[in-house]
């Protein structure tokens, strides 16, 4: 197939009551079936609308509020796909696996690939020095059933997030792919997207066309909201990304989408309601075949050639998500600014429609190791609106802006080729691609 219809479902997970003691297997299955009842409606509707594959969220079947003990009744043994198993046809082959049976039958009876996130348990014993005291490993696991209901992929999340104490790290990171009539797919989960292994490796070494991406992501403005960050990842890595998030406004969890390298096809961001949302879009099975497929970018090419702008400026510190940036204020309605931190220099040229007295903008640079809720090294150039005209609020979450930029050009002397460009407009809306472009020399620039 040259194209396929992708579906993503943002699911408002029905969370089990938090308990001190594990519930019975029967009670656990009761809860999981409540969630699968909702997912089933989405699968049926997506299939009726012609979708070839549907992705559902991480923790979508039982939620995330568990200890190691209380999640145990929700787990099943999940074999490796090499066993050539269709749970819907042969439900007892690997013991008690009602969830895998039901997901497999959903895929089979609706002739659609189903991607879901469940829990895998693997017994171990003292002969394994890493074996946990309770004699088992527990893994956060993505499973994929093809349109015949056959288990074709199993992925154990490698980069667990800090609160995920109910799971174990896999011993090493496995790159998991699966082939379909509509291209080669990779698969990983939520926090993995920050990683080189498996996220970059599955794209660059395994040459996948699309990624299925279950997540349970809570948004952190201004730079780590699901939709802007993940769509920018698809743009920079030049693959399709099918991102299905959980929906929980109390925890700021929302933001799913179907992102192609050349454009955001559809996305959903909803902090108002408590309901799930199904999205569909057509995608190229091989994104490279699209005429608008992005060309590679040398992110520092332009910036390396710029003589730092030397306008009279006074830099000041500001924090974004616990990282200390170096900021400089945009004092006029137009101008050129450079701000540097360590090896990174960020250059901005801009033109505002008007400079408002009640809104302040700053250009910021960060070059360092992020160390909260994970450890990863960042180099960031950012233009942002400060929460109030008080410069001490630069970096705090902001939801709306009235200042309009007629022109802009942002670039940086990056020491990496992995740079993710994002523009978020007032009301947390993504800037449509027709309003900006990413030049081969690394400039994020307004379209004239």
């Amino acid at each position: 197939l040259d194209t396929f219809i992708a579906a993503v479902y943002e699911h408002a997970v029905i969370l089990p009551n938090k308990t001190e003691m594990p519930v019975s297997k029967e009670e656990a299955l009761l809860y999981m079936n409540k969630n699968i009842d909702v997912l089933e409606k989405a699968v049926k509707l997506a299939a009726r609308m012609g979708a070839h594959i549907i992705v559902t969220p991480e923790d979508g079947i039982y939620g995330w509020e568990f200890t190691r003990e209380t999640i145990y009744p929700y787990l099943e043994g999940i074999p490796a796909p090499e066993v050539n198993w269709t749970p819907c046809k042969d439900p007892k082959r690997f013991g008690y696996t009602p969830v895998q049976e039901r997901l497999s039958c959903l895929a089979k009876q609706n002739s659609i690939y189903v991607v879901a996130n469940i829990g895998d348990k693997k017994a171990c014993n003292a002969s394994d020095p890493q074996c946990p005291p309770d004699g088992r490993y527990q893994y956060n696991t993505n499973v994929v059933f093809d349109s015949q209901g056959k288990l074709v992929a199993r992925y154990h999340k490698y980069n667990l997030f800090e609160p995920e104490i109910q799971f174990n790290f896999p011993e090493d990171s496995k790159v998991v792919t699966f082939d379909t009539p509509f291209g080669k797919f990779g698969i990983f989960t939520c926090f993995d997207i920050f990683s080189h292994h498996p996220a970059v490796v599955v794209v660059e070494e395994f040459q996948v066309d699309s990624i299925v991406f279950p997540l349970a992501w809570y948004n952190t403005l201004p730079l780590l909201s699901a939709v802007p960050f993940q769509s920018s990842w698809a743009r920079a890595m030049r693959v399709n990304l099918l991102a299905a998030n959980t929906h929980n406004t109390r925890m700021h969890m929302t933001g799913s989408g179907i992102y192609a390298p050349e454009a955001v096809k559809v996305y959903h961001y909803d902090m108002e309601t408590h309901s799930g949302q199904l999205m569909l879009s057509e995608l190229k099975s091989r994104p490279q075949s699209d005429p608008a497929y992005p060309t590679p970018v040398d992110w520092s090419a332009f910036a390396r050639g710029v003589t730092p702008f030397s306008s009279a400026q006074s830099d000041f510190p500001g924090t974004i998500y616990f990282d200390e940036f170096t900021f400089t204020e945009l004092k006029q309605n137009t101008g050129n600014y450079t701000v540097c931190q360590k090896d990174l220099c960020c250059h901005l040229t801009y033109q505002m429609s008007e400079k408002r007295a009640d809104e302040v903008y700053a250009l910021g640079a960060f070059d360092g190791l992020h160390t909260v809720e994970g450890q990863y090294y960042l180099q960031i150039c950012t233009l942002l609106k400060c929460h109030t005209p008080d410069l001490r609020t630069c970096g705090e979450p902001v939801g709306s802006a009235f200042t309009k930029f007629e022109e802009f050009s942002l670039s940086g002397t990056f020491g990496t080729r992995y740079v993710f460009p994002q523009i978020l407009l007032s009301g947390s809306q993504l800037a449509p691609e027709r309003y900006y472009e990413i030049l081969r020399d690394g400039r994020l620039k307004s379209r004239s």
Partner: protein
Amino acid sequence: GTPLPILVMALYGRVFEKDPPRLGQGPKKLQ
């Protein structure tokens, strides 16, 4: 071009060579 009400614009770079072995909970959980 169309004037845009920008909240935030970013070039978000990841320098993988400078990452620790694990991004998540970190080695202390493994021990």
